[in-house]
């Protein structure tokens, strides 16, 4: 077990964590501000990836394709908000779960009809090709560094918006007490729409950024959605800080767990059995972490202020 | 005097720098109706929450029937004999009136969570429930879904649920909140009928009701009890007049 391998795994974990944060940020705000459970948030990630794939191929430019994909994700978010979600805000969680579940089926099948069931690949942009040496002849792709940088930049931007602007103040207030914000004369529906659309765009951005390193395929949003749920539950519903911390923890635990659990289990089991068990066990780590966190802190690690 | 059924000793609660309950001690003797009054923001609601167990105090003890229940859950306090009504009506809208009250009685019965046998036709529980419903004068509505009752009827249903628990002591959290004059008089009548049978701690804004019902009154101002005494003593207490009844007396 070399030090450089550990470095690579930590970088991979960070990168996964930051992608998860981009998805979880919008989701946790939608939960916190609107008390709305949106299972279809994962498909926004998928839609972002598909739009990026299609638009990068169409325009021939990664940057232009990415920007257009973001605009597209935002537009689709707004359309879904106006057509469906708006009618579900006051409804029971059960209705929200079912309707957004239906929406997942529609969108997963929709992309399958348009782009086919086979994964499509997206090239890494020219400017971000190549690798950086981490010493000992070990290379790490520049593009993955770019994802980490972009994720950190978005996280910082989001923090600035939420901590320093009026709309951010309303979002924070809404996450802890929506009726009060409403009573202050703020157009709560407009606030919902903005939060929702921005959340959709962030998820789309994560999908678009991940497109060159993952296979873009129908249903790719589902597993991300569930990981984002775990992140939100661990971090505390409605809490951006919590989502950030939990996303990094989950990203690192998942990545390191996968690469080291085989070695750990080899201490107790024959190699073949260790490989077999490790696969399943490492996928379960984050759920076990979630269970432990919940048992001791049902509100999550860093609950949104004013919520309990 | 025998052991009080509700005893509160040195209760303190603060939210940050704000002290909302400041060394409060009071007790309710068997059969006594003890009223708690005080201007808005005096900390009555917070105090009730601490007695019922929905908020934990920072310091002090709460004894129900002589048993120290500080830190116990609301359910544990209920099992120890403390029933309560809620300031904001709290009923089970999908059960009928009989079902609501029978469920309250069920909690105290020996096999409270039996898995078999129809609860709705459980005569032992229904008889207990009907008695409590009759006691509050709601018998005509026993079969109605609780969600369909008028506000005044729901307030009375709250009291029936408390009675069906066969409690030692009852917390009455503004039982007349939001009801009209006529119904208010009915509730006063009802509480007068219950007087002497239960230890009751009554929080209420309706001063006329309080002074006609209470054996003793405690006055809470800024989280502290500034006076405790009979209605007549409280009426003439200079500290109370100054702090609380001041403008009315003027």
């Amino acid at each position, binding site marked *: 077990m070399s030090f450089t391998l550990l470095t690579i795994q930590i970088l991979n974990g960070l990168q996964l964590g930051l992608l998860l944060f981009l998805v979880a940020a919008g989701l946790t705000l939608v939960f916190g501000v609107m008390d709305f459970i949106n299972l279809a948030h994962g498909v926004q990630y998928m839609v972002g990836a598909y739009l990026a794939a299609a638009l990068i191929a169409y325009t021939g430019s990664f940057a232009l394709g990415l920007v257009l994909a973001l605009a597209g994700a935002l537009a689709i978010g707004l359309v879904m908000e106006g057509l469906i979600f708006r009618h579900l805000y006051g409804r029971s969680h059960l209705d929200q779960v079912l309707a957004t579940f239906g*929406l997942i089926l529609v969108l997963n099948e929709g992309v399958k009809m348009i782009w086919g069931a086979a994964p499509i690949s997206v090239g890494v942009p020219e400017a971000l090709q190549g690798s950086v040496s981490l010493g000992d002849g070990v290379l790490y792709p520049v593009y993955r560094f770019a994802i980490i940088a972009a994720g950190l930049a978005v996280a910082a931007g989001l923090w600035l918006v939420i901590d320093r602007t009026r709309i951010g103040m309303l979002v924070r207030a809404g996450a802890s007490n929506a009726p009060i914000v409403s009573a202050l004369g703020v157009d709560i529906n407009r606030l919902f729409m903005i939060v929702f659309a921005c959340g959709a765009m962030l998820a789309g951005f994560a999908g678009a950024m991940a497109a060159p390193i993952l296979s873009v395929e129908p249903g790719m949003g589902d597993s991300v959605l569930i990981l984002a749920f775990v992140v939100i539950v661990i971090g505390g519903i409605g809490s951006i800080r919590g989502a950030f911390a939990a996303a990094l923890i989950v990203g690192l635990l998942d990545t390191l767990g996968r690469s080291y659990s085989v070695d750990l289990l080899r201490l107790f089991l024959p190699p073949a059995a260790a490989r077999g068990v490790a696969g399943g066990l490492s996928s379960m780590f984050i*759920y076990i972490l979630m269970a432990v966190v919940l048992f001791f802190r049902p509100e999550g690690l860093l609950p949104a202020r004013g919520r309990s | 005097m025998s052991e009080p059924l509700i005893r509160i000793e040195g209760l303190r609660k603060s939210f940050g720098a704000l002290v909302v309950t400041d060394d409060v001690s009071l007790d309710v003797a068997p059969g006594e109706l003890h009223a708690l009054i005080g201007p808005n923001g005096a900390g009555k609601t917070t105090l009730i929450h601490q007695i019922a167990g929905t908020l934990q105090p920072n310091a002090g003890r709460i004894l129900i029937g002589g048993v120290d229940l500080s830190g116990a859950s609301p359910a544990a306090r209920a099992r120890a004999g403390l029933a309560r009504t809620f300031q904001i009506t709290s009923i089970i809208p999908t059960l009928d009136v009989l079902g609501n009250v029978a*469920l309250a009685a069920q909690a105290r019965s020996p096999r*409270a969570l039996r*898995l*078999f046998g129809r609860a709705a036709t459980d005569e032992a529980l229904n008889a207990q429930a009907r008695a409590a419903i009759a006691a509050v004068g709601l018998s005509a509505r026993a079969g109605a879904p609780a969600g369909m009752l008028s506000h005044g009827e729901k307030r009375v249903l709250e009291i029936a649920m408390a009675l069906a628990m066969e409690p030692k002591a009852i917390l009455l959290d503004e039982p007349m909140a939001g009801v009209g004059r006529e119904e208010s008089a009915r509730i006063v009548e009802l509480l007068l009928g219950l007087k002497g049978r239960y230890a009751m701690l009554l929080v209420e804004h309706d001063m006329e009701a309080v002074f006609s019902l209470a054996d003793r009154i405690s006055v809470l101002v800024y989280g502290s009890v500034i006076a405790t005494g009979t209605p007549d003593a409280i009426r003439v207490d200079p500290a109370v007049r100054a702090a609380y009844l001041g403008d009315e007396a003027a």
Partner: protein
Amino acid sequence: MSAEATSAPAAAARARSRLALSTTAPLVMLALFALLPLLAIATGQTHWLSLINRIVILGIAALSLDLILGVGGLVSFGHAAFIGLGAYTAGVMVDAGRGDLLLVVPAALLVSAVFAALTGAVSLRTKGVAFIMITLAFGQMAFFFSQALYAYGGDDGLTLPERSTVAGFPILANKVTFFYVSLGFLVAAYLLVRAVAGSRFGRALQGARDNPVRVGSFGFDVFRIRLGAYVISGMLAGLSGVLLANQAEFVSPAYMAWQRSGELIFMIIIGGLGSLWGAVLGAAAFLLLEEALSGFSEHWKLGFGVLIVLFVLFTRGGLADLARRLTGGRA
């Protein structure tokens, strides 16, 4: 006062018709189910047998979910995990040559009960949206665990060499007798859930759905009531998993996929929450819809998704309520 006097008999009539519906509808449904195999054989459409058998089996699972979701108000999004646990218990035991139903059923009930008790003890500490997400996450945990069972096929699943015997007799090998065995389990499960829902325990569970604070203030331990219901429900779903594995003669992680949990919720909602027999009706409606749509287009899930969205946006109360409105609407 006069309004009360006139509405009281009407309310009583409504209550009577509701009661009549709640006893006759399940009986009619049972009779229909009992006759269907004969009809299928008489018309030579024996391939329908496996479809109606799956309806009966998933009916048990839907029924079990209706106890916690419909009666208890607990939106569990991980219920498919219990079906999977039951199915894997059956698969593994049949594979090991210990596949008699008299061994498999108690084992599956035990495994499901333990999993329900452990995951319930954590997830029931939360409420609302968090509960939905946590049950979903635990469902995924079970899903990944089954994927890691390399000795039993991993992701590809496990083909059962044979069906379970019953006390040594291979009676499940015959499609028709298997169906009637399943139907027997469904009837037993229905009677059990109905008895539990109507019991003192069930009334407290229902009360806690509407007003947990009030039920707690009576002295009930709401957490324990819910945990009890969660365990009973998980065990019944595990039972349906045993039957499902035998029916398909195959088990795979797909049984525990989170979409399966979503479909179960859909079943009990179209059936009408908390109506119990409606859950079975919902299972039938879902599987027939799936059959019809999948015969129509390979992209049937698109249409299915649209139907779900429209259903939520435009109806409330499900099929059972529709039936109630149709029959009770006259009163």
